[in-house]
């Protein structure tokens, strides 16, 4: 099949990355269709909605480069499959990763299906990751730009999903993408990159969450001394390793969140970021996704949060949907976040962190 006969639906967000993605595919001769996804309605009392502005940028770029463009509404799917999970995880005292879930359920499921129904051969996005399809099957590799690599968020994509996906920016550095946007003179060439979780945007996180979940204030306890360090605003507002926003100080350096007790509604804090209470040596994880088959036990490297340096680990497959990951020592490994496994540049797979241990002993992160 030649590129001319290959239809690629590009998920266009109105940002510079997906704009360049569409243009690059067009330059390579593909039959390109742009589709904007509306996943969240943030229309305020003045009728202002960021999606309207973003869609306007999609329109401008699509008209500039000469591709058809459409819009699709996944507000319901996003609410049911991503936002509900997000709230449920917070209720459990965990720290969810809605971007991972959005990729798994919306961008590469609902959207992918929509594109396939419209006759697409592939779906492309502006993610910084590489995917190869060849006689050895499907592989996902880190984006060449290590600073922008987004494979952490893509770890739940299955072989089947990846076989229909293209990431044309994976082999580019971000500054090169900007340069190309200028070279092509795209309407979005100087648009600021979006930050944060899409449905919260620029709003205050605490305020946002409190409008969906009742806040239940309690006590902050120094884990070492048992000393009462004052009031916390609700366990859901804190994540393991967090330093900002605790409102406590004093001699001996800053305090960090080290655990939560859901039963007593207590927040455990410790002094010093290399405090032993924050350190762990293994974890168990579920929602396991391996892109290609693996051995029952193997060595590799892993990330426990986005933009963290890889840590050497040993992985044991304990069951159908359970793995154990062991390592020398890592700080503030957080239940609800993803653990993503790498073999050099290749993504082996990923899972969601459930329990964290220090030398076989379960940490009271979620007592």
């Amino acid at each position, binding site marked *: 099949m030649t590129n001319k006969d290959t239809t690629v639906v590009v998920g266009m967000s109105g940002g510079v990355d997906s704009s360049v993605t569409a243009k690059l595919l067009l330059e390579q001769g593909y039959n390109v*269709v742009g*589709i*904007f996804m*509306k996943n969240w309605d943030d*229309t305020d009392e003045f*009728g202002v*909605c960021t*999606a*309207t502005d*973003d*869609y306007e940028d*999609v*329109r401008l770029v699509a008209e500039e480069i000469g591709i*058809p*463009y*459409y*819009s*699709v*509404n996944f507000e319901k799917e996003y609410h049911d499959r991503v936002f509900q999970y997000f709230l449920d995880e917070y209720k459990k005292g965990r720290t969810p990763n809605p971007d991972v879930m959005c990729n798994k359920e919306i961008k590469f499921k609902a959207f992918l*299906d*929509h594109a*396939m*129904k*419209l*006759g697409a051969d592939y779906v492309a996005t502006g993610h910084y990751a590489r995917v190869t399809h060849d006689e050895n099957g499907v592989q996902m590799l880190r984006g060449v730009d290590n600073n922008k690599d987004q494979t952490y968020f893509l770890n739940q994509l299955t072989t089947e999903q990846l076989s229909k996906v293209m990431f044309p920016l994976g082999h580019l550095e971000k500054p090169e993408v900007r340069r190309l946007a200028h070279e092509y003179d795209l309407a979005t060439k100087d648009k600021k990159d979006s930050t944060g979780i899409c449905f919260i945007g620029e709003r205050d996180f605490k305020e946002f969450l409190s409008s969906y979940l009742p806040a239940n204030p309690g006590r902050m306890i120094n884990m070492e001394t048992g000393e009462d360090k004052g009031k916390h605003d609700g366990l859901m507002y804190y994540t393991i390793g967090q330093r900002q926003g605790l409102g406590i100080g004093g001699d001996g350096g800053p305090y960090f969140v080290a655990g939560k007790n859901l039963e007593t509604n207590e927040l455990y804090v410790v002094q010093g970021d290399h405090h032993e209470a924050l350190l762990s040596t293994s974890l168990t994880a579920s929602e396991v996704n391996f892109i290609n088959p693996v051995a029952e036990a193997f060595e590799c490297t892993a990330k426990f949060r986005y933009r963290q340096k890889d840590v050497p680990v040993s992985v044991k497959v304990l069951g159908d949907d359970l793995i154990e990951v062991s390592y020398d020592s890592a700080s503030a490994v957080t239940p609800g976040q993803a653990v993503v496994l790498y073999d050099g540049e290749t993504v082996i797979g990923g899972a969601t962190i459930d329990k964290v241990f220090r030398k076989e002993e379960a940490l009271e992160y979620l007592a």
Partner: protein
Amino acid sequence: MSIYVDYAATTPIDKEILKSMLDNADKFGNPSSIHRIGKEAKAFYETSRKNVAQELGAKPDEIVFTGSATEANNMVIRGITSYYDNPHIITTAVEHASVKETYADVEKTADVTYLSVDENGRINIDELRNALTEQTKLVSIIMVNNETGTIQPMAEISEAVKDSNALLHVDAVQAFKQLPVNVNTLDCDFLTLSGHKLHAPKGIGVLFIKRNTHLNRIITGGSQERERRAGTENTLYAHAMSLAMHKAKTSREETSVVLQALKETLLTELQQQEVPFKINGSARTQTNHIVNLYFPWSTSEYLLTAMDMAGIYASGGSACNAGTVQPSHVIEAMYDEDRARSSIRFSFGEQLAEKDMKYIAAKLKDIYTGLDSNGFI
């Protein structure tokens, strides 16, 4: 391939009308100026008003030119609800957005009753009679629905309203192309029309206000339109409006035959191709220029995109921000939200041919089998 089946959204400008506008473009004066150039424009403008009045069975001083039917509907609703103190108003659950949203906006100062509709999209006359009270000042009814083509029982409605103190406001935007629209027969106090649905340019509407009817004005300024709508008169567009109405009226019967054939061909072809669908409402109580179809195996959003990719331009629901589609409140009022999410409006014009209908049916068949064979249904 490019098949436009969205004539209820808007229509192309008639070439003859466009030519006549250009031929009269030298009458550029301001009709309010008292010099000769102004008077020339005034004469031209008032001729258009007289012609429009004639097409409706109205008197020229009962006709107000507006910028759109949306503006005309706003003038009636805001003009009446502000004229009275907390009036009671009756309307239906299936009005055009320009009526629906305007009532939503004035609900703080008016008590609005929304009449329900049956599966055919028609109101129940007893419900209307029961809703009418001494305090009811206005009844707003869409004569032909813009999404389904459903015709309301206007004779019975005006009969019921006549027995009350209320004024009758008829939105006849979609009706004029297909049905006789006469303010005396309808016995209405307000009637609104739009030019661009009748092959005139966008930017012109008509509001009929029966003599001696009182309402507040919402656009203030100069004393144009007998102080009912300020703003320099849009002479050329009013001219286009009068021509468009005349053309639509004189070709009504002929057009109806063409449109009926198009509609029937589409429905027959879809049946023959075995594409599962149902008609929203009943063809017996609908005009020929609109048909709204329910495709239980897909969504309007998907179908509109897939059809667009095949060069078929229809609609479904109302356009929302960010290019997405809001399910039709009309279909929802007749059935439910699920059905509204899977319904498409096809609306026809004289320019279409029966082979276009065959193409649409064949493409829908392709789309249907494509989804079915890939396990998407």
